[in-house]
């Protein structure tokens, strides 16, 4: 399960160019990691690709922090 958390963090670091130390589970993409709204759309696309799942728009809107992403993927991903 921690594997999912690591993969999520890796994607966030790569996409946002964020410092690893700042990418904690409670970090907010927009408030703490400097993402804009388009970045969050791209992050969701990257999660979908990495984990082979579809994240519907209404769920994507609720993914605001690293932990939100990890929780959603743990609950829904096939991989």
């Amino acid at each position, binding site marked *: 399960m921690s594997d999912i958390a690591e993969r999520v963090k890796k994607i966030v670091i790569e996409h946002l160019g964020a410092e690893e130390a700042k990418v904690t589970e409670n970090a907010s993409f927009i408030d703490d990691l400097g993402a804009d709204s*388009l970045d969050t*759309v*791209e992050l969701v*696309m990257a999660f979908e690709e990495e984990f082979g799942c579809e994240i519907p728009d209404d769920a994507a809107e609720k993914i605001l922090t690293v932990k939100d992403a990890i929780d959603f993927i743990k609950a829904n991903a096939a991989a």
Partner: protein
Amino acid sequence: MFDLTGKSALVTGASGGIGAAIARALHAQGASVALSGTKVEALEALALELGERAFVTPANLSNTAATEALIKTAESAMGQVDILVNNAGLTRDGLAMRMKDEDWQLVLDVNLTAGFRLSRAVLRGMMKRRWGRIIGITSIVGVTGNPGQANYAASKAGMIGMSKALAAEVASRNITVNCVAPGFIATAMTDVLPDEQKQKLTGAVPAGRLGDPRDIAAGVVYLASEQAGYVTGQTLHINGGMAMI
């Protein structure tokens, strides 16, 4: 200049005069082209004429499901869509006081809403690849208005506004969104007009002639090119000086 080798373009309304000219011009610059439209025979004839790098992807854009499916079809034919040309359009003219709701709705659905849906669908791949061109074929009447075309003018003005909004959203990802606005262009639609009316049309154009579909296609090639990468949210008017905006 304006080399499109290795790029893949989807052109809607490619069975019409302007759409076919756009497809030919993009193809001549080296792009692969997916030809969409409702007249399958005309699309197949055009694909045959173009030879390699041409694919027939018919779709009826008044149908939501068919519109959504078109991008997938084009992507599976060409691998990806780098250039989307929203050219498909139709008219249902009539004075506003007598215009039926269906005629309003159909024109908005095909000319504007389908273009939005196609744009939304191609943006995903363009964002990932950090490159994209979306070009809407609007019309001079979207800017000036025209009696009898409340629906058509609204759809074309809508396309200009939509393009500006999209352009602002995705500019940072190296995706440009622009429009080309033709004036009076000689097509099958104008060929059938009586000479007297044609003269009247031409009289309103400082250039003294109707436009050729290739005049429009040249503008599309430019906006699709690498060289136009800093041009976004714009409308290029190609109308022989008929309206200088």
